[in-house]
């Protein structure tokens, strides 16, 4: 059984249809990339899966249960974590606090107001463990708003993966990074998504072809192809619609 199933999902804003009849199956453990020209609806698709938007019609299932139109926190609790295209962290809290907050729900603290976070040994150790994974241990006490851009992106990833979610969704994780920063980020993504299922939106084709097991091409709100990287490269329709327009930079 597939981990995530999209069945004839549509999304309209007013009379404008942004996502049109998208069906997609993501297998557990798969690394799936979604590519497509600007304005194709990639981010919208992410927002539909993660609950920021409700679907106009169609169904989304996760682990065999329907999740569309649930509030984001319900979907997050079921094991779907996501990052954002624009860095979306808690800027006035410390780097460590960002990670610790991201862990609270999955560690079972819920809305507790009778436990002190400072006393929760396992929680704090786990938070430090994640900081080490994303390479921000030495910045733990810094307000996260003061981090450099690439570090904020790393923290963004850390907040997304902290809960140990089964499905991780990354929206343009290396956008705006220099080559060397992007290289580090890709290595980091590989490390933290090991054994997990990944859906990623990315513009950099090298990274897409490097990480993904399967690629879906989204054009004007429709998926025109879903296949392995090799077959996508050779696909005529994809070349016409997308790869031909945006030359693959070396």
């Amino acid at each position, binding site marked *: 059984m597939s981990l995530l199933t999209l069945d004839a999902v549509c999304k309209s804003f007013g009379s404008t249809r942004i996502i049109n009849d998208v069906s997609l199956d993501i297998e557990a453990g798969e690394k799936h990339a979604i590519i497509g020209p600007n304005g194709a609806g990639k981010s919208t698709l992410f927002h539909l899966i993660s609950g920021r938007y409700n679907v106009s019609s169609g169904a989304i299932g996760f682990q065999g249960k329907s999740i569309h139109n649930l509030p984001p926190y319900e979907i*997050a609790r079921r094991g779907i*974590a996501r990052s954002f295209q624009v860095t979306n962290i808690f800027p006035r*809290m410390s780097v460590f606090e960002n990670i*610790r*907050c991201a862990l609270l729900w999955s560690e079972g603290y819920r809305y507790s*107001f009778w436990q002190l976070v400072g006393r929760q040994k396992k929680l704090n150790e786990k938070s430090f463990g994640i900081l080490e994974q994303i390479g921000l241990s030495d910045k733990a*006490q810094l307000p996260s708003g003061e981090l450099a851009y690439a570090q904020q992106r790393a923290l963004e990833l850390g907040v997304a993966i902290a809960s140990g979610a089964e499905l991780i969704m990354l929206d343009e994780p290396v956008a705006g990074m220099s080559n060397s920063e992007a290289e580090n980020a890709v290595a980091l993504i590989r490390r933290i998504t090991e054994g997990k299922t990944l859906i990623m939106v990315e513009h950099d084709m090298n990274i897409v072809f490097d990480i993904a097991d399967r690629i879906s091409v989204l054009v004007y709100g429709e998926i025109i192809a879903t296949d392995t990287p090799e077959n996508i490269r050779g696909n005529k329709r994809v070349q016409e619609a997308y790869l031909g327009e945006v030359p693959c930079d070396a």
Partner: protein
Amino acid sequence: MKKQFPIWLGFALALILLPQIFDTVLGISILNQMTIWIIFALSYNMLLGQGGMLSFGHAVYFGLGGFMSVHALNLIADEIIVFSITLIPLVGGAVGLLAAVFIGSFSTRKSGTVFAMISLGIGELIVASSLIFADFFGGEAGVTGDRTYGPPFFGIEFLQDAEVYYLGAFWLFVATLFMYLFTQTPAGRMANAVRDNPERAEFIGYSTRRVRFISFCAAGLFAGVAGGLFAINYEFITEENLNALTSGRVLLMAYIGGLGFFIGPIVGAVILTLMNSLLSNYSEMWMLYLGIMFLLTVLFLPRGFAGFIMMHQTAWQNRRLGTLILPYLITAIPASLFLAGFVGLVELSHKGDDTLSFFGLILGTESMLSWGILLTLTGIGALGVKLSGPRLDAAWVLANTVRSDNGGDAQ
């Protein structure tokens, strides 16, 4: 928590010793007001500073807690219930909590403008109903009580203000401790997260509405405790204590003290209580000075007085705080001249036929010389501040530059 033990011990000692130092009638009275306002301002900061909820109606919970507490005092006096008045703040707290549960159930759905407008509306609604339900609110006259009935507490009957102070100080300590501990719980940490970025908070599994609701209830509870103390201290309460003026006052306290720091509202409550009790004896214009101070805080000290103190942390770590003393003093002299001149101008301008006694000078509104002296003083002060400013700036920059000899160990 262990590291902070000395701070809490110092706080407790200060609370015990303060009435020994300021042992006049006025001193004790001011301290009593401070216990009430500090709790109230801290509870307000649970909303605005910790949770990002701008409320214009926080006095509702303070006032309802206070009214119920005065009624409780009367029930005790009429021997309808037997209850120690030392526990009255719990009555206030329970009422504040109940009101917050009810009102918060719909007002915390959104933060920002929607929340602010609902809080304003609820505030007006309660004020309006206070004139309608005259049995409970006592109409314009309010309700009065007497704290000296009920079983004495180890022989103390709370006839004197000093006894009331220690009761207030006890509740202040307990309330402050619990409000601080709340910030260190998962619900308290998530309140900060929701304040910073509500969207992301939802994507890490938290309903922002539920997080706000919990903070809101806690804030209502402690506002009610402050209301209960108010009832014990003043033994009467009117509609004024739950209207927008009181809500505005607690907002000013939290803001002037500094929203971003736990101690901010404490500082703000102390400053405003002092201004309210002392300055009002000297000048009818004290509200104007308060307004100007608020304006200056918003413009130049957005992190409040606590933020101003914390600004010196880097200099302290660089061990260069001492280098700032002289430049501060040099700027402070013309600044005081300016302040004196300005205050003189304000005071003289509303004296009419009266005269103003100003540092031994008798100034009159008719005399050009009087105006001249004050204007000159203000002008010289302003000029002095302008001239000494760059020197202070330079000293500030230097003090905040890490010393080369101890390199990066400033942390």
